[in-house]
Every structure is written in C-alpha cells, then in structure tokens.
C-alpha cells in the first residue's frame, strides 16, 4: 500500500508542476539558508577540547579593583606578579602560563630574507593539560622550566618548513638571534576556537609555529606579541618595572580533576586575594572567578554575533517557508476533494487518506531537501563572502550536514502537512459525489 501511495504522490506532483515547484523551492531555500548558517555556527561554537573541557579552568583575580576592572568582572589574564605567585603555590594538579611571541627565522644565505614565525611561550604543563599530541619527542618537564632551559616544541607544519619533516628532536633552531633546542614536534593540533588564547584574539587565527619555554623567553625579554592591558598611570620604565606593573598579559590555565577540587581552588584564589589585600597590594575585597572551557568561551563571546544573528534569521526564514508550504499543501490537497470523495466512497478509510497525503508531503520534502542540499553546496563556496575568511574556512559540508539537511527538509514538510492532510481526510464522500 505504501508503494501505491508513493506512486499516487509522484503522479500528483506532476499534476500541478507550478505548485509543486513552488513548494520544493520554498523548502529548498529555507533548508539551505538554515544549513549554511548552521554549518558556520557549528564550526565556531564547537567544544574545542570535549574530553577535558570541564576539568580545565581559567582563574581570574581582580588586580584592578572597582572602577577599573571590566564592569565588575576581574581582568581576563594575570599580571606577572600574580602569575608567578600562583605558579609557586602549586594548588592545582596542573597549571600553565601562556603568552604570544613573534620571532624571525634567520636567512640561510646572503640572498634569502628572514621569515616571521609566531608561537606561544608556555610552561611545561601546557602539553599534558591540553593533550597536545606528539609526532617526535615530547614536551619538557617542570625541572626544565626551573632550569630555564632553551627548549622549544615545533608544530608539524613548522617542522616541515624548517627541517623538511624529519625528526628534528635534539637539533638546534635559531629564532630572532637566539638558539633553542628542539625537544619535540607536535602532531597537527589546531583546536577551534583556540580556547587557550581567546582573551587575546578571536580564536580562529592562523595556528602557531612553535611553543617555547616561558622562563627562557622571559629571561631573553621576549616581547609579548599578544594582548596587553594596563590601568591607571603607566609609569614603568624598562622590562623589570614592567613585570611589577598592573599590566595583564599572561594567560593562566589550571587543571582541576573534580568539582570539589575546583571549589577548593576557588577558595584558594579568594584567600590569595585576601593576603594581597592585607599586604596592601590590593585595596579592595576579593573578586575572583574560576570558569571552565565552556563558560570561558561563552564569557569571551567567542561565537561572533553575526553567526548567531544569521542563524536565527535563517531559521525564521525556514519557518516562514513552512507556513507557506502549509498553505500551498492545503490548496493542493483540497483541489482534489472530488478524488478523495471517490476513494472514500470506494472504501478507503480516513486513516488511509491521511497516510497517502503524508507520504505525498514526504516526497515533496525529499525533493526540497535535494534542492536544499544542492543550494547548500553551492552556497558553501560563497560563505567566504558572508563571513570573515578565518571563520568561513571552518565551515564545510560533511556527511552529518547532508543527513541533517535531508532529515530537516522531510520532517519539516511532513509536519507542515499534518493539518492539510487532516483536512483532506475529513472530506465527506457523500457531499462530493452529490455535487458532481
């Protein structure tokens, strides 16, 4: 019987080609607009480190105080003094400090020119905390941190450029006039958004070339190439005074395994603030935060508002297309009141009529979904026009998006057909036959 309904459905689709085309186009455009904007939204709103996102936290301490903090919220990074104090306190199972650096590679010969390379100065826990995968070697350990060793980890892409992809562990690399020893080469690892640096950047920029040992970078007075934010009067002169200033630029992350560990760490942050208040460094009450990855990304508003607004507008658009489809289906089904009357008089039950028209709607939904898929694929190539390139490059069509497109189109169309099909099933056979 189901096969027969499909046959009837297809025949009916051919009967009013204009009306059918209109519905298929409405569904197609609606679902395509939703899917294109959804694919971008999906790319920017994803969890970059799902397996650990609830164990990684950003500690925040109000080092600026009322009137100068960010509308009541503590600054999103640490100044040097607080960062070092918290590193020494060892109150979390792991803790990393991060800042961005930009260096240059030295030309090979008299005719070539230097090339800029960018990366992060990090402490040893960075690698195990974020599960950085390694191709060769490993990160360094805390002892190396304390030895202020000239260690560096290269990304696979940078290792390809500099060492042709060979195992470079143990080799030396000169960056901005200083030698570093390669201790590891990281496999391709590009969490999107780059959650650990979203205080300083939007999280979708080019990936780093290397990670170097933070204490060594500090010893060399390697400049912070990322964000730096200060308050009050800037009075420092020179590197050492800068380190003692209220400027925040070091991004802290801690790993806390359980909820009670997190609660304990939050209390520690408070007691640290109280100590600083007693010592006279801060003239205000403790104001601390401890946000995990998800909360942090939300607080930093990593998802661009454009992406959210366009998704909302596109879904509304799809909804209007469905309202349109309800109207057109109603017209299409009721036009065949006579035919329904004959079928009912010949013994078809209401239930059968209902099923037949839902199947017909599903066929329209399938056609709309196919058109929507086509438009989505075409639209994807134009995503670069609609969103910033670093975000547009993240959006892509994959199997789940194809499936979602077809399912959304069919489910939505069948849902839209409930009322028209019900009306069709209500047709009184006697009345129809009589009027003929």
């Amino acid at each position: 019987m189901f096969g027969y309904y499909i046959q009837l459905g297809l025949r009916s689709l051919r009967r009013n080609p204009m009306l059918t085309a209109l519905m298929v186009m409405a569904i197609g455009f609606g679902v395509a607009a939703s899917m294109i904007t959804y694919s971008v939204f999906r790319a920017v709103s994803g969890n970059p480190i799902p397996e650990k996102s609830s164990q990684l936290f950003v500690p925040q301490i109000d080092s600026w105080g009322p009137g100068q903090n960010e509308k009541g919220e503590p600054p999103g990074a640490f100044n040097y003094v607080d960062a070092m104090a918290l590193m020494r306190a060892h109150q979390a199972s792991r803790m990393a400090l991060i800042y961005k650096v930009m260096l240059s590679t030295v030309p090979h010969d008299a005719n070539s020119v230097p090339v800029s390379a960018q990366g992060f100065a990090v402490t040893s826990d960075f690698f195990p905390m974020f599960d950085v995968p390694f191709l060769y070697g490993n990160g360094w350990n805390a002892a190396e941190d304390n030895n202020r060793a000239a260690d560096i980890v290269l990304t696979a892409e940078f290792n390809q450029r500099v060492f042709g992809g060979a195992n470079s562990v143990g080799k030396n690399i000169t960056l901005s006039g200083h030698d570093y020893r390669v201790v590891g080469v990281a496999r391709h690892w590009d969490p999107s958004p780059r959650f650990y640096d979203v205080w300083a950047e939007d999280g979708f920029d080019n990936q780093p070339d290397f990670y170097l040992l933070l204490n060594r970078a500090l010893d060399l007075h390697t400049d912070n190439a990322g964000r730096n934010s200060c308050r009050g009067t800037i009075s420092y002169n020179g590197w050492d005074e800068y380190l003692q200033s209220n400027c925040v630029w070091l991004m802290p992350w801690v790993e806390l395994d359980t909820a009670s560990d997190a609660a304990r760490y939050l209390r520690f942050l408070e007691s640290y603030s109280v100590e600083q208040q007693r010592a006279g460094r801060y003239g205000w009450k403790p104001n601390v935060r401890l946000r995990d990855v998800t909360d942090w990304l939300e607080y930093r508003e990593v998802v661009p508002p454009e992406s959210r607004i366009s998704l909302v507008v596109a879904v509304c658009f799809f909804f209007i297309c469905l309202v349109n489809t309800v109207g057109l289906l109603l017209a299409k089904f009721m036009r065949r009141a006579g035919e329904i009357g004959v079928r009912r008089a010949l013994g078809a039950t209401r239930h059968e009529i209902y099923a037949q028209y839902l199947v017909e709607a599903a066929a329209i939904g399938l056609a709309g979904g196919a058109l929507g898929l086509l438009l989505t694929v075409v639209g994807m190539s134009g995503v670069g026009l609609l969103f910033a390139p670093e975000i547009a490059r993240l959006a892509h069509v994959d199997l789940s998006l194809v499936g979602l497109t077809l399912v959304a189109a069919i489910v939505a169309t069948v849902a839209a057909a409930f009322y028209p099909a019900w009306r069709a099933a209500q047709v009184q056979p006697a009345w129809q036959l009589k009027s003929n």
Partner: protein
Amino acid sequence: MHIQPILAALRRHKAGTILIALQIALTLAIVCNALFIIHQRLSHMDEPSGVDEANLFVIRNLWGEQYSTQQVVGRIQEDVATLRQVPGVQDVTASNQYPIEGGGAWDNFITLNPDQRVAMTDASFFTGDASFLSTLGAKLIAGRDFRPDEIKNQGMREKVTSSVAIVSKAMADKLFPKGDALGKSFYAMTSDPITIIGIVDVLHRADVSTWSATYAGESMVVPIRLAEPWGTYYIVRVKPGQLEAAMRAAPKALYAENRMRMIESKDGVLSYAQVRHQAFERDRGMAILMSIICAVLLAITAAGIVGLTSFWVGQRRKQIGVRRALGATHGDILRYFMTENLLISLGGVGIGVLLTFGLNLWLVTRFTLHVLPVTYVLGGVVMLLLLGQGAVFPPALRASRVPPVEATRPV
C-alpha cells in the same frame, strides 16, 4: 465595495486566511529587522576614516634582526628616506597603527586629572611625526601641526612623556563639550598632563569593533617616533594615479636597502581600499546575507499568495460565474479579490508590527542592536501591502475573466 460579504466568505476559508496573514506577519518581522541590520552595517562600512584613502597605502614592516632603540630609530629614518625616493611617492610617515586598521589596536584611557580612577573616555592612540597629518591627509581644523623638534623617540617599555597632542574633534568635544578644547590639557594614563595643540576634523579609530562604538571617532596623536623591536607601520601617500606602481616598487626598494626585514607577501602591503575591505568584511557579509534572505523571503511570500489565491479562484469559479450572470462587471470581481487580499494583509501587518518589535526587542537585549525606527516598520508595512496587491493581481485578473456561462456548468 461592500466589505461585509468578503468577510463572510473569508470566514469559510479560515485556514487559508490565517496562513496568508501569518506569513505576511512573519515576513514583515524578518524583513524589517533584516533591512535595519543591513542599514546599520552599511552605515558602519561608510564611516569616514578622515584620511585620503584613494592615495594611501600601508606597509607592515617587521625587523629581521634584533635592534636597540637607537638602531630602530636609525632604521626607520633610513626606510622613510628610501620610500620618499620611490617614484610617485609624495610623503611617508611611520606609526604604531592607522585608522580603520581593524583587529587588536592601541587605545589609552583618558582622564582630566591624574588620580581619577574612572576614565572619561578611551581614545585610539596614534604615534606620529611632523609629517603624520600631512601624509594621511587629515584635516587640521584648529591649532597647529607638530614641529620636527617636538618629536621624541620611544623604545619598547621606555617611559617617554610627550606634553602635547593633536586630538580628533570627537574627542575634543567629549572632553570639553563647550568647544574650547584647544590649549586645555588631559591625561592619557600619563603622570604628566598633555596639552591639546591641534584638532583634526575626523580621524577614525584604529579599531572598528562594536565595543568602541561609544568612543566612535575619538583618537589622539602624540609626537612620538615609536622605535619598537618588532617593527613598524609605514603609511605612504602617493601622487594621484600612481598607487599601484608605488605599491609594487616600495617593498622592493626597502628590501634593496636592507634585506633583514619581513614584509608579508600576502598582506604586508595594503592599499587603503584593501584596508577598508578587510576591516568591514563582517559587516559586508552580514549585509549580503540579509539582502539575499529578504529578497528570497519576499519572493516566496508573493508566490505563496499567488498559489493560495489561485486555488480560491479555482474553487469559486461557479460563484464568480453566478455573480457575473447577475450583473457584476470584470472590475467588480477584480476589486473583490484585491480587497479580500487587502483585508487579510492588513490583519497580517497588524500582527506583524507586534512581531517586528518583539524580534527587535530580543535582538536589542541579546546582541545590543539599536531600537528599530518606526519609519522602517511603516516602510515595511507599505511594502508588504503592495507586495500582497501585486501578488493577488494575476489570479484576480484570471477570476475577472470567468465567463457568466460558468454559472450553468457543473463544478
């Protein structure tokens, strides 16, 4: 035309009537808000930079060696001299940033006294030499430009105090609303006061982000040659019509002078047109997407009205025939369907206006958008009423051509 019989007929087509009205209402809500978003994005993209964009380009120059502050100062002076020799170049200046640069930018809090904790405003902070304003083509409307002897060199994290500044009119007005800013002083996170010696008409901030919307156009220039170890920006003014040639020649000349530098081939040299294009690409993308959605939405709504009205016409052929046989003219039938659509559309836009403001309220609270002006809603209402009338015309015309003899035929 009597409205009573139309209403009576509509009561027999409740579902179709409600669907058309609902569709018009939703379309109005989306289209009004989308058009408003488009308008806001376009006006953001049109913000004046205050500089001679047609004849300017920017070089992002990174040093390939480690220099002391004095060495950087020497390098910058050599580079500026080299760039001035490039054919077609009119003037060159070095700066820490440039208007509508976009991305992370340098801004300083501004206070009127040194111990004020809460800042009055947040100004975009430019460092420039005596040829900064003339190179950019910014228009000085009061006071004077910097003198060459006022320019101080400042290395990374070095404390250098400049006691004078040139500010934009927007910033002058914010600090001194009475319009007497010239000669007054302020603090820009500095321990010493800075005196305003000049006011430029417009100098856009370096950033174009939404957070700085409340500080729009507020910029200041200090007479400092920033000699930082990472590099500098060169802003180059060319003679009219020589932009492309100069943009090609400039990096070559710099590399020929000293190859230990890094100018990215992709975005190291940007014309101001490219700068503007990059800075506002989010706005442009949003405007394009909203335009496409508006256009397709209006088309689909119109098509939906055509479809449903055609169905009604088909259903009522016999009744139309009867009316024609009883003396109704072509015009009467046409007007009947047009009026019927107008009534439904009026109902639709009535609900639609509420939905429009509801959606706008949500966008305002969620995305800090602005409140929709009433003119947009009125414009949207008129547009949808016209759209409805336009869409109903073809089926209504077909209805008016139903011959009276239809009354005698079986349905």
